[in-house]
């Protein structure tokens, strides 16, 4: 069965102008993200993976090239269209969770659901990430893993087509990290959400359907993983 292309990147370059020097973060990058896959983008720091994620997530614009999301060129979007793209199509998970400290777990999720017309049920999503009993706790009353679960709930409650994780396990211990990865796979399977995880941790690639390896702003590897490993079997 031919896979549906969700996102297609066409010769994407990004150059940062740092006054005297120009830094080329991405160099003519071309690849496609298919609907429903779990993709891992691997690379050491400085390889351009965060830049790539920002551009894919509609938070930054490429210097050159085009990106088609379901056939629409998002590089041509104006500020409001980009905002709507982020609002309706993308969910973000950050390395540092980035929850609002003065809002409870439930309210942090509501922050996202209030933006869209057909969100998932906040309670169900929180129960789904294992926080049924702790919905009304403030972030400071939650462990790091629990905070990251809230962040994931916040990202998926909008029911986005694309879930982007920036080192989602970077700040967590091994066991919690594995649980979070398992949760991401579960979401991928149960909601059919396309998940893109960027990480420097090569072990995580074992659970992906597809892996892209970046180095110095260029794709150096792009392969399909015919037999993704369940998250709980990953070891690092």
């Amino acid at each position, binding site marked *: 069965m031919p896979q549906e292309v969700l996102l297609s990147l066409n010769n994407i370059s990004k150059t940062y102008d740092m006054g005297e020097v120009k830094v080329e973060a991405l160099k003519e990058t071309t690849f496609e993200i298919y609907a429903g896959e779990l993709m891992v983008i691997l690379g050491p720091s400085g390889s351009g993976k*965060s830049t790539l*994620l*920002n551009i894919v*997530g509609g*938070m*930054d614009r490429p210097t050159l090239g085009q990106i088609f999301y379901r056939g629409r060129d998002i590089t041509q979007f104006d*500020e*409001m269209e980009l*905002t*709507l793209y*982020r*609002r*309706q199509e*993308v969910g*973000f998970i*950050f*390395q*540092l*969770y*980035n*929850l*609002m*400290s*003065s*809002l409870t777990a439930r*309210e*942090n999720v*509501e*922050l*996202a659901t*209030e*933006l*869209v017309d057909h969100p998932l049920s906040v309670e169900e999503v929180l129960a789904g990430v294992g926080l049924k009993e702790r919905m009304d706790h403030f*972030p*400071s009353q939650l462990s*790091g893993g629990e*905070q990251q679960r809230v962040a994931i709930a*916040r990202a998926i409650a*909008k029911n986005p087509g694309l879930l982007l994780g*920036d080192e989602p396990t970077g*700040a967590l211990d091994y066991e919690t990290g594995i649980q979070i990865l398992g949760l991401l796979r579960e979401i991928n399977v149960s909601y059919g959400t396309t998940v893109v995880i960027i990480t420097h941790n090569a072990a995580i690639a074992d659970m992906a359907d597809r892996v892209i390896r970046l180095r110095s702003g260029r794709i150096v590897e792009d392969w399909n993983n015919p037999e993704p490993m369940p998250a709980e079997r990953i070891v690092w």
Partner: protein
Amino acid sequence: MKALDKRLIRTVMGAKAQYGAVVIIICIGLMILTSLSNTAQNMLVCLDEYYRNYRFADLFADFTAVPVGTVLDLGKLREVETVEPRIVADIRADVGRDLNPTLRLVSIGPDQRINRLYVQAGRIPVVSGERGIALLAAFAEANDLTVGDKIDLIIRGESFPVTVTALVDSPEFIYAIKDIKSMLPDNLNFGIGFANLPLMQEVMAMPGQANNAVCLLRPGVDAKAVRDKIQEDFKSRGIKNIVTRGDQISHALIDMEIQQLERMSRAVPTIFLGIAALVIYMLISRLVQADRTAIGILKATGYSNLEVMSHYLKLALMLGLPGAVSGIGAGYLLAGSLVRLFLEYFQLPLLETRLYYGFIFFGILSTVLFCGGTGILAARGVLGIAPAEAMRPQAAPPGKRSLLEKLVPKLWARTTFSWKLVLRGIWRNRRRFALATVGVALAYAIIILSLYMFGLWDLLLDKQFGELETYDYAVSFIKPVSSRVITEMRSQARITTIEPFLELPFQVTRGWREQTLLARALPTTTELQRFEDEEGNFIPLPAHGIFLSRGLAESLGVSRGDLVEMSSYVTGGKTHLVPVKAVVTQYLGSGLYMSLEQMERLTGQKETFSGVILSSSDDIKRAFQSMGNIESVYSSGDLTDIFSEYLGMMITYITVLVFVAGLLGFAILYNTTSVSIAERSREFSSLRVLGFSQKEIFQLVTRENLFALLAGLISGAPLGKGLVVLMIQAMLAGGDEMFYFTTDISPGAYLLAAVLSILIMVLTLAAVWQKVRKLNFLEALSSRLT
């Protein structure tokens, strides 16, 4: 409620003191706005109704003693609806105390057609020839007189006993002062008594005569045109002076008072709202900086710039609107009693107090404009934050060498580490430092303004009586005297210096502008009355030409070197062109001055004086008590007393202002300092981990604040001066002839304000110490929350 709104409420609740201070500032501003506006509006309406119901005259004419029939001829003019012939005369009255006050006797007609009296007690003595008198209530009260008491009118050395039959108020004497020079009512020494015309004709020995008229004009008639016509027509029939209602002393003064109140009701709240706006700007722009990551997340999640900005705008309105609503509420609660206080003070009969709710709208609108405007300005920072900010912690500010390091490296090398930390911290966070400095400067400036307002009247009195009018007493005579009187007076008291003066009314015209006023002529050699020109130099009185006080010059549109037209009944209606030799400063009241020679040229009157000014350490009032022909004796002390009494109300108001200034100062400093602590908890935590004690961190903050204090005091001084100038401009916006407010601020005021600012800083630092003590550095360091 939306999650973002919940966050907003929790943000405010988490820093109640900071945000509360802003709410209080706005509350007080709006309270002043609504209460003063309502008071002014009520005064206007009450005055208007009072005038209408009590048939306040449109024209007031002085005549020499003429047959009543002459005055009644005024009624033949078709513009005149009613005319009332009167006798008006200033006499002394024995009211049973050692000094006899001046009583202005005003005759009343049997049917009270014009300037009707408002009876507080008793009945008006309208029966022809009845030996009764109605006294102005304020005068009666000051002299402990009531209905049924007997007083003696002293006329030409003779006593005429009369009975007080009523205590009254009059629309003509709301502001009961002798002449424009007295400026403020002195109810103990000057009062008004109303008696029927036949009695007046008898005691004044003016059978069948009158010397004054009041007229009501037909609706829609131009009063000034009628006045000019009467002046012309009656020139040879004894008319001395005629003024319209607009120039009538009592009305002009009360009108000015209401205008002043209106200006205050705008100027003071503007200052409060301006300060609130500034604090809101500081709070929100820094909150936006502190919220970088949160803003990044919101944007990444799909919130638009507008939605995020409106989040912060809501914060501004969340502070502004409760402040406005509570302030307006308090203002309306206060308005009722404030209105009564003012009406009582001005002896306006309390007709009806009404609250005008239009000011609610005005207050809310001003608040929304001020707070919303600054909210938008401050939240602009949101635009510059990219959604990708959420991906990374904020980059550390670049570590740069401070200016001091670059300029004087040797001094820098000898500076201890903790001072280096302070100096580098200031240099690297110039914006934060600037805000703290602004905080101190604002607090300092507001205190300077309050102290200036507090000392303003003292300053005016000092300047007026210490520098310009250096005499101890001014004596006015009932009938003009010759210079012989000086010798006579010298024989009765020890007098250091004595100078005669002649005061006569003139109509002064320049183009279409004109003023009727009392001109005072003095010897050119006068030492007791000094004149200061616009540049602040003392100048002698010239033999030719006149001096005009600044307010008068402005209202006539004249400056030095211009010619003005002067005419008077004493000039027989003839107009003279006279040069203005200088515009002089007069802090209290207004005046036109000339030499006795110049007066002689204008009027032909020579060796005739209407009064003397003198310096003496004797109790002049007692010494001249028995002398006939003395109309009044005023000491500069009396004037100071009268002012002080008038100031009772002002002082209460200003004490409140000073207290509020302190509160504001504390709020501003506390805000800037505590925001800085909140921002720096991570930095302080790192220092704690490095081994700094709480005390050392507190020292760090204290030292930084010390620099801010110094910079704030230096920049606050000119700012304070600026506020004073603004305030005075606002108060004088309508062109005030009565007062000249110098904007000089005494060194003492600067010093006291500085001491108070330092005190506020100490209080703030005490609050900071609590914060530093409570700082949980481990939590602050591990924080992953925004």
